């Protein structure tokens, strides 16, 4: 006999709550072709996400694997294929940036924020911003350092923009490629539990470069000590993000190989920061003596100093 309660309409619980009650239940997700419900779906899942991850364990659930398989099914010559790499909302990008600036010790950046939805928006535009920030800050800092010197004529130094662009984009895309190739090769020798796709590595590298943007702006301050303190601080923050991401991927390997890999990652990261500081920002206490400019008709002209 059906009671009155059975006949009453039961609200469908959120998937997260149902799963919390019964973690072993099979989950089926119907991926709708329309874009808008997917966005709302991700927003609904957001508050329950943290509990989800802890309850389901560190391995990917069936749901995310299904979704990941369905997402990348378009062939690579269609526009839709590339659209899957830009499937992020504003709040997701901001969360990822926050996660790269305030690394939580012990939590993996990829596991926590990327979750098999790597995006190319973050890496590309963070690199673009960094290129222009370094070029503009370097130019401004040189201007302030040499201001007041009689022989100084301001130049915009526009060529440095292309050099900065080449360097930063090469670092953010070629180093992940090399690292991914290396990890794939080690994976054939030693079975690693944790392995990352190429895009996830690009994502981590891209977002880890974000801390350098405010650092580059602060490097305008023409004090050597301040600059080095800033550099060490930002290196620690972004280095720790990289460290916590890649240590689980190599720790099952031969001890020496693991340590060498992580050391190389951090060394390249430091090299980028030091190189940028050295090339784009002139040293603060340098005194440039008045040069003797040879005139066109053969006589030398000595510049006057006021």
């Amino acid at each position: 006999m059906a009671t009155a309660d059975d006949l009453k309409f039961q609200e469908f619980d959120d998937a997260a709550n149902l799963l919390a009650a019964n973690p072993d239940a099979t989950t089926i997700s119907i991926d709708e072709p329309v874009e808008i419900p997917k966005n709302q779906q991700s927003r609904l899942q957001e508050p329950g996400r943290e509990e989800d991850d802890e309850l389901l364990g560190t391995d990917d659930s069936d749901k995310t694997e299904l979704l990941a398989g369905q997402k990348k099914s378009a062939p690579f010559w269609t526009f839709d294929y590339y659209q899957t790499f830009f499937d992020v909302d504003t709040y997701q990008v901001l969360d990822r940036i926050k996660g790269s600036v305030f690394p939580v010790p012990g939590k993996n950046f990829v596991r926590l924020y990327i979750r098999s939805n790597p995006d190319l928006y973050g890496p590309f535009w963070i690199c673009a911003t960094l290129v222009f920030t370094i070029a503009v800050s370097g130019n401004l800092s040189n201007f302030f350092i040499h201001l007041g010197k009689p022989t100084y004529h301001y130049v915009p130094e526009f060529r440095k923009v292309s050099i900065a662009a080449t360097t930063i984009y090469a670092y953010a895309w070629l180093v992940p490629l090399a690292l991914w190739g290396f990890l794939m090769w080690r994976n054939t020798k030693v079975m690693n539990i944790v392995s990352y796709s190429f895009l996830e590595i690009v994502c981590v590298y891209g977002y880890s470069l974000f801390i350098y943007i405010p650092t580059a702006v602060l490097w305008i301050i023409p004090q050597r000590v301040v600059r080095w303190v800033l550099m060490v601080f930002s290196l620690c923050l972004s280095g720790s993000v990289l460290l916590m991401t890649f240590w689980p991927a190599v720790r099952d390997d031969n001890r020496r190989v693991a340590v060498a890999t992580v050391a190389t990652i951090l060394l390249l990261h430091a090299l980028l920061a030091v190189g940028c500081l050295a090339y784009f920002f002139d040293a603060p206490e340098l005194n440039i003596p008045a040069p003797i400019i040879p005139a066109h008709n053969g006589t030398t002209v000595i510049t006057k100093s006021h």
Partner: protein
Amino acid sequence: FPGLADVSIPQDIPVEGEITVPVGSHSPDEDYSTLDEPVKDTIMRDLKAVGKKFVHVMYPRKSSALLRDWDLWGPLVLCVSLALMLQGGSADSKDDGGPQFAEVFVIIWFGAVVITLNSKLLGGTISFFQSLCVLGYCVMPLTVAMLVCRLVLLAGAGTVSFIVRLIVVGAMFAWSTLASTAFLADSQPPNRKALVVYPIFLFYFVISWMILTFTPQ
């Protein structure tokens, strides 16, 4: 057929008309073919369309003229004039000078293409050339700023002139960004608007920086 029994054509209304199609010399082709019109008409029509779009950028309101009847003449003219005005920044061919003509050209067009691709990849509904058209036309306030800067620099290159240039370029940068955002914002998915607006901000910031740091030799 019982239903048709009460349908009857009244006898007193004549049914008449012509069924011949007039093929006279009115030439209805006049509306479709512009081949026979004088060249002045053709050029003036395009010039008027371009001029109308400039006015729309000056007073940005939600008008569909910029989007529907896109053209790339305006952006081309603006880009070429801006690149020409940014010349003469360094007489020597050293690497430290300002941007060369080709660099300005590439930055504006490549930047506009990348921003358009970005907005389309994020799910925007605007077409490729419409977006290029809007971004190109919204460079106009910055071209005006460049003109003003060059005039101010003719008067002198001191601190006062720098402050004047800074204010002018800053105001025009804000105008450009707001104008293009006003035109492009509606075609973006609502929870990704900031992701689309930020590259536009960066684009106009770079152009403003090139204008502000222009120093004649």
